[in-house]
């Protein structure tokens, strides 16, 4: 899988949200735990739809969860 240019702070936000587990986040965002792991490791770039669902799971706007780096 290509290295992501889109960075995320999912892992940091999980710990800020009462150490939410990967499975809990996956359940809230409607994806699998493996996808959350891949996201945290920067090995998968989510679709816009999943990105919004993840941001919503943290109660944050999209740009506070994801950032684009050139």
């Amino acid at each position, binding site marked *: *899988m290509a290295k992501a240019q889109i960075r995320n702070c999912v892992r940091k936000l999980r710990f800020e949200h009462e150490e939410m587990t990967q499975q809990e986040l996956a359940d809230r965002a409607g994806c*699998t735990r493996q996808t959350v792991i*891949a996201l945290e490791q920067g090995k*998968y770039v989510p*679709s816009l739809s999943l990105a919004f669902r993840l941001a919503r799971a943290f109660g944050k706007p999209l740009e506070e969860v994801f950032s684009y780096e050139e």
Partner: protein
Amino acid sequence: MYVYSYIWSEFFNIITNQTLTRKGTAMSQVRHRAILSILIWGIVAVGFVWSFFSGGGPASYTYEPSRILIGAGFLLFGFIAYYLSLWLTRVKTDTPLIRDERDEWIALRASRGALVFVLVSTLVFALGLWIVYRDAGFVPVGWMWFMGYCMAIIGYLSQAVASLIVEVEDNASIAE
């Protein structure tokens, strides 16, 4: 006796996706379908090759309707079992999520690999026939049946094998 019952229970667990990983999650739909597909199309491949080569091979294949029927029967079994397995492994609302967009991405990559494999297989097989029969000036028509059936079987088999490889590799790369 214990070994047989262990093997059978593991086989049953794979078929019904009861195998739980150490993390307590069900097998992904991509992996489950790939395993079932390999089993189904493996049976079809063995059955068709047996029906094709038993009793004369390509030279007499088209003159024996019983062998054509047996071969077609195996292919029909493959299609019915395959689409039944897709229905049985569909995403259900009352079970843990077993497929998401990343699995779609894995399946897409596997399909690309399988397509290339089928195309190359067809080319290699056609070239092989040309090399073997160019002096004779004709190719027994039985080989056309063989190529047609085999490409259908190889298409499904290679898709399943590629899915399994990509899925296992991807999940190994993110293993903690």
